[in-house]
């Protein structure tokens, strides 16, 4: 009997399903965040001058350099392509006053990238938002330089210093919304930040749960404390923190329920620090604190699978037998 002529079998690729993947990559997600940061960056340059642009670029570049150096020293593959270091650098720059010396900014990005991120294992492994830690370290190390706020539209080295609207409490809502007040680079222009937030939401990058919970809580608690809630929402770093830092994937809870708890927690801590402590601003500390609580929030907000039956609870005896 003649057998069917077995065709010379070429080697076919064999892999587990699924065989198609979406276009979205980590680098694209980070790219969207950079696009969303762009309006606020433009606003900061308009308000504070070219030095703002220099500071943003400096922070982005040093972040990438620290990241690459860590890769080389730790013998890890090059991870600068995922753009997460650039995002960290830009967000950190947004948290700095425009007058900050460059060498201090470099320390900030070092703390953010090397100490907070790479030492803990790189992308996805950091316990806290790198930019927040960088800012807090700078704030505690160089309190004078970190609170050297200048008047908007003074584009000189010896610019006139001013107070942030949180301290002076004399800015109008319009001024706060457009950002013509003293403050950190990226936090002043609420309009630009909102634009970025809407972009991120529209591109399905962030969930609005945490930012809305954060903003809502700040407003509500402020009113309850007898302050102007809307003013508290617009002034200071709440908008920047809520839109770009309380939505950081890595350091915030993963479920919607968890995100809401996170946002509410941030709002309460922010208000407590603002109204009761000696610091005028509490956004960074509140986010850092909630970052640290995130694993616990995650633990208590596990999703319930659809159709899942409650598992058999182990009695004490069974557990002891296992030991």
């Amino acid at each position: 009997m003649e057998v069917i002529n077995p065709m010379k079998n070429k080697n076919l690729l064999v892999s587990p399903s699924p065989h198609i993947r979406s276009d979205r990559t980590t680098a694209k997600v980070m790219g969207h965040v950079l696009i969303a940061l762009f309006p606020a960056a433009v606003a900061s340059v308009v308000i504070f001058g070219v030095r703002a642009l220099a500071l943003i670029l400096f922070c982005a570049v040093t972040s990438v350099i620290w990241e690459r150096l860590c890769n080389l020293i730790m013998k890890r593959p090059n991870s600068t392509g995922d753009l997460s270091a650039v995002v960290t650098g830009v967000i950190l720059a947004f948290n700095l006053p425009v007058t900050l010396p460059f060498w201090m900014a470099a320390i900030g990005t070092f703390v953010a990238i090397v100490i907070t991120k790479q030492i803990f294992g790189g992308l996805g492994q950091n316990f806290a938002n790198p930019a927040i830690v960088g800012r807090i370290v700078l704030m505690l190390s160089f309190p004078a330089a970190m609170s050297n706020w200048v008047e908007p539209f003074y584009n000189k080295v010896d610019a006139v210093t001013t107070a942030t609207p949180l301290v002076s409490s004399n800015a109008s809502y319009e001024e706060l919304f457009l950002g013509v007040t003293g403050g950190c680079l990226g936090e002043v222009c609420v309009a630009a930040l909102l634009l970025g937030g809407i972009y991120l939401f529209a591109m399905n990058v962030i969930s609005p749960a945490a930012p809305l919970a954060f903003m809502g809580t700040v407003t509500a608690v402020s009113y309850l404390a007898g302050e102007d809630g809307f003013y508290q929402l617009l002034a200071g770093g709440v908008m920047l923190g809520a839109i770009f830092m309380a939505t950081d994937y890595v350091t915030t809870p993963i479920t919607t329920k968890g995100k809401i708890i996170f946002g509410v927690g941030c709002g309460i801590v922010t208000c407590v620090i603002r109204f009761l402590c000696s610091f005028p601003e509490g956004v960074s500390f509140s986010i850092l604190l909630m970052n640290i609580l995130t694993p616990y929030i995650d633990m208590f907000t596990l999703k319930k699978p659809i159709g899942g039956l409650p598992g058999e609870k182990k009695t004490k005896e069974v557990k002891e037998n296992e030991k």
Partner: protein
Amino acid sequence: MRLNGILLPHKKRTEYSQTKILSLPERVKICMSQHMGAPCVPLVKKGDLVKVGQKIGDSEAFMSCPVHSSVSGEVVDVSEMLLANGKTCKAVEIQCDGQQTMWEGIKPPHINDKKSLVDAVRESGCCGLGGAGFPTHIKLNYDENKVNIDSLVINAAECEPYITSDFREMMENPEDVIEGIKTIRDLLKIENVYIGIEDNKPKAIEKMKELTENDGYIKVVKLKSSYPQGAEKVIAYSATGRIIKEGSLPSDHGIIVMNVSTIAFINRYIKTGMPLISRRVTVDGDAVGRPCNVNVLIGTSLKELLEFALVDFDIMEKLISGGPMMGMCMYDMNAPLSKTNNAFLAFKAKSASKLPLLYKGQTNCIRCGKCIDACPLGLMPTELEKAYDRRDREMLNKLKINLCMNCGSCSYVCPAKRSLAEKNQLAKGFALSK
């Protein structure tokens, strides 16, 4: 509430392709394990003469269904063969005589009650044609004293990209679908029938609505085109609103779910008595010169089917049996067609290199939670991956790894390009092991 799902490119390029018939092959190789459950034992030996529709394999086991010859000719070999999933089973090779003589025993079955229906469906060799291959008679043979079946859900979602074989069934044989539904409904005394069709097939929806106008108990349900709408649990929920709980079957919740091609086949079997010896297959993919739907005899070598569809073998790097989301990679182009193959997709090197095997661009998990938003059953794939990586059996069970149906949605959406679905399968095996 709607179950989560993901949006996929549909790529239903073959939806207007009238089903073509593949010419008679010289030889067929009929595998004894084409369904879910126990493989059949060959009833023929080398040298036997068989005819079209003759039973050549059967099993005593509860979970099994017989296998029939798709050609007439001489049995030239009964041998072990390696299946795509790595298991082995017996296969009967038949040299065709070219006559396609019908077996004498073929006559329409006599059906007047549930028992005779179940027996007839078993004899037809029918198993779920959507891909899982669950023996159909077992679905129908529920215990009336224990469960009260009030809903029949016809699965015509066809949610995987490329595949159009169920759609073509509805366009070409709509009467078979409706008559099959009515027969089964009347014999089993089921009150409600739902035909679930995704809204990317408006023509099928229209056709089914037209044919069921006068029957108030058959509802055509327009489903959102979101993958995996056609998964049994998902379509059962979308149609009836009932959640099929962990460890239970649709029948425990009063539902029978059947694929639309399966029900049309059952109707043809009741009319003609010809068992399951051929089926419609979609051939598509970017290495295919002529994407089409083909009616192919069971046991035909894939190579003949691929040649018919003008597949360029030089550029083909990956051959998938089934859809791109849940299909299985084939490593052998000479494998025979089985009852459950609804599509074959051949892809070029370029698209194959984008495929997950090479892990291009994989990064650490960034905890974006997209996999959690994608999972239709509300599982947490990223947490499952971490639990598996630390071999935490307790956590895996707590997160209900056993519910994962390997739909692949989590892997699809992951921006870090992690192979979550693959890990879930490993984790499932691990959680079950002691």
